[in-house]
């Protein structure tokens, strides 16, 4: 009973570590997945990073990306394909069963290919829609579900800024971004239409492009830089007035955040492991005192100090190891349960199991050492006299 209670400390400690590692690892796996869901080899060009008198004004100070830039990129690009401008506005969407507010992105037909985003209903708008500035829209899953619950929205109409748009298609669900934004809460319209009817400017917020392969990403970034510098007529001593990012930058940023978070959580969890270890030390000290006579008997019949040391060390390691295994099981069950209840993805790296087992054994050795050494150094005469 006493042993069980002591083991509980280790059980909880190991379970807590496994649980936090599982949640942290799961989060990282999810981020990787989501970054991939943005579209492989995605390159995002944003305007900005102007410098005035040596002072950087940061990204998107000036909105200097234009449709001309996008056209030039798609004409001249060799290491990347599928260039699409992205204009961004927000407006109230009226239609179906009510109204909804979502970002309205003006994009080109290449957008769907770049983002690798399949349709669930209808089709994406075509080049002729783009040229004719037709008022057509493709709905994200979230928008479709909210405005047209249980109804096929294709062919229906929505009103954006009082302009009627015909719905030609619905995108499949893509889920959340690494930052937690719902990618499906969006309406896509031809950028030409968006500029003419919704935003009223010729500037565009973003250009997205797709590198021809993952290996080409750095080359594509350089090529985009060169083309845009030429297009913006920047001299050699002027800095870029735009930024080209790839998804691995995004992934790294997001991942380093979760790494820090999970490291922090694991550190907190391992404190409980240390507390569990102190519990083991306590119980072992009590055990050595209670079993002094037994130690005396063993010494009298010829046990060396090292034999006694090994025996007590083995007991504390067995205790913590058993606790560690129980904790491991508990951690796995807890992680699975947590995953089911909260919808967080949890995953336990296989190495964590080995580390947890090794660590709990190490706790046993570390905290069992002092009591075991105390037992080994007992004087046999004193120990035999003990009652």
């Amino acid at each position, binding site marked *: 009973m006493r042993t069980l209670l002591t083991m509980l400390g280790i059980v909880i400690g190991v379970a807590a570590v496994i649980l936090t590692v599982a949640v942290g690892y799961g989060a990282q796996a999810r981020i990787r997945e989501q970054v991939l869901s943005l579209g492989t080899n995605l390159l995002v060009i944003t305007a900005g990073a102007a410098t005035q008198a040596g002072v950087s004004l940061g990204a998107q100070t000036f909105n200097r990306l234009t449709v001309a830039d996008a056209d030039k990129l798609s004409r001249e690009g060799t290491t990347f394909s599928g260039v699409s401008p992205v204009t961004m506005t927000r407006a109230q969407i009226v239609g179906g069963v009510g109204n909804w507010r979502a970002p309205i992105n003006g994009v080109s037909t290449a957008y769907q290919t770049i983002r690798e985003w399949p349709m669930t209903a209808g089709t994406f708008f075509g080049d002729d829609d783009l040229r004719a500035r037709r008022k057509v829209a493709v709905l994200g899953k979230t928008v479709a579900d909210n405005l047209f619950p249980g109804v096929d929205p294709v062919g229906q109409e929505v009103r954006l800024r009082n302009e009627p748009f015909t719905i030609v298609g619905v995108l499949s669900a893509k889920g959340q971004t690494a930052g937690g934004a719902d990618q499906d809460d969006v309406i896509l319209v031809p950028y030409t239409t968006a500029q003419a009817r919704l935003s009223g400017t010729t500037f565009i917020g973003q250009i997205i492009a797709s590198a021809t392969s993952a290996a080409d990403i750095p080359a594509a970034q350089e090529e985009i830089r060169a083309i845009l510098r030429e297009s913006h007529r920047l001299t050699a001593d002027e800095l870029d007035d735009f930024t080209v990012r790839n998804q691995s930058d995004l992934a790294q940023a997001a991942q380093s955040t979760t790494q820090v978070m999970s490291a922090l959580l694991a550190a907190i969890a391992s404190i409980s492991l240390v507390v569990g270890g102190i519990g083991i030390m306590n119980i072992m000290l009590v055990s050595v005192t209670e079993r002094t006579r037994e130690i005396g*008997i063993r010494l009298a019949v010829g046990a060396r*100090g090292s034999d006694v040391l090994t025996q007590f060390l083995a007991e504390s390691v067995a205790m913590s190891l058993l606790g560690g295994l129980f904790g491991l099981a508990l951690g796995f069950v807890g992680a699975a349960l947590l995953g089911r209840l909260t919808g967080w993805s949890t995953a336990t790296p296989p190495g964590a199991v080995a580390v947890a087992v090794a660590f709990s054994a190490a706790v046993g050795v570390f905290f069992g050492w002092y009591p075991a050494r105390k037992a080994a150094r007992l004087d046999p005469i004193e120990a035999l006299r003990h009652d």
Partner: protein
Amino acid sequence: MSDAAATPQAVIRIERVTKIYHTGQTRVRALRGVDLTVEPGEMIALMGASGSGKSTLLNIIGCLDTPTSGSYWLDGRRVDQLDRNQLADLRNRKLGFVFQGFNLLSRTSALENVELPLLYDRSGRHGDTRALASQALQRVGLDDRRDHEPNELSGGQQQRVAIARALVTQPSLVLADEPTGNLDSAASAEIMALFQNLNDQGITLVVVTHDPDVAQYAKRLIELRDGRVIRDQPVSQRHRATQDRRELRDTETLLPV
């Protein structure tokens, strides 16, 4: 030193052994120069009042303690300068202990208790430790109790398990510290009969006791007082414990009548 080689066959050879304990400021001279030689096959009763130094002497003979000065040869080997590990190995190979309080491991079967010293053997001279333990239990007549734990055995039976444990390594010397101290007279006679029987088979025994009756079962009586040997003589009218046992049994059967 030269005489050591002259009598290599002596089981115990102790010369001018002293032991001084320091407890705080006071020095206790537990042994003040003891000389003692024990030949193989002897059965010695070591007597003395408490504080006479007999426990100290027993601890030194038993390699549980080392003398402050003087020399000690056990089985021809000088042992008074050995370290803790060497003493432990020596206890394991050469000595068997029987205590007043039995000192068996609780929640451990009789057989496993007897097997215990064999598990600490480093020479690898024992083969099947289970079989040896079983044989030792047979020798004390407790083979049928091999799976019983100490709390399921009577005092006399527990002491016999302890004796089996002392015998299992085939030691040169068996030391018994008040072996009958916790037993009634019938069980005491039983234990002493077993000791005499073992002694007849050639086992050298040193029995510490304060009971003059128990001392009468030995062959030789040594008495200590104030850290010195004051008496060392053969037992004149040695009792046979088997006979006393028979008599005790007779009185017991007579008593209720």
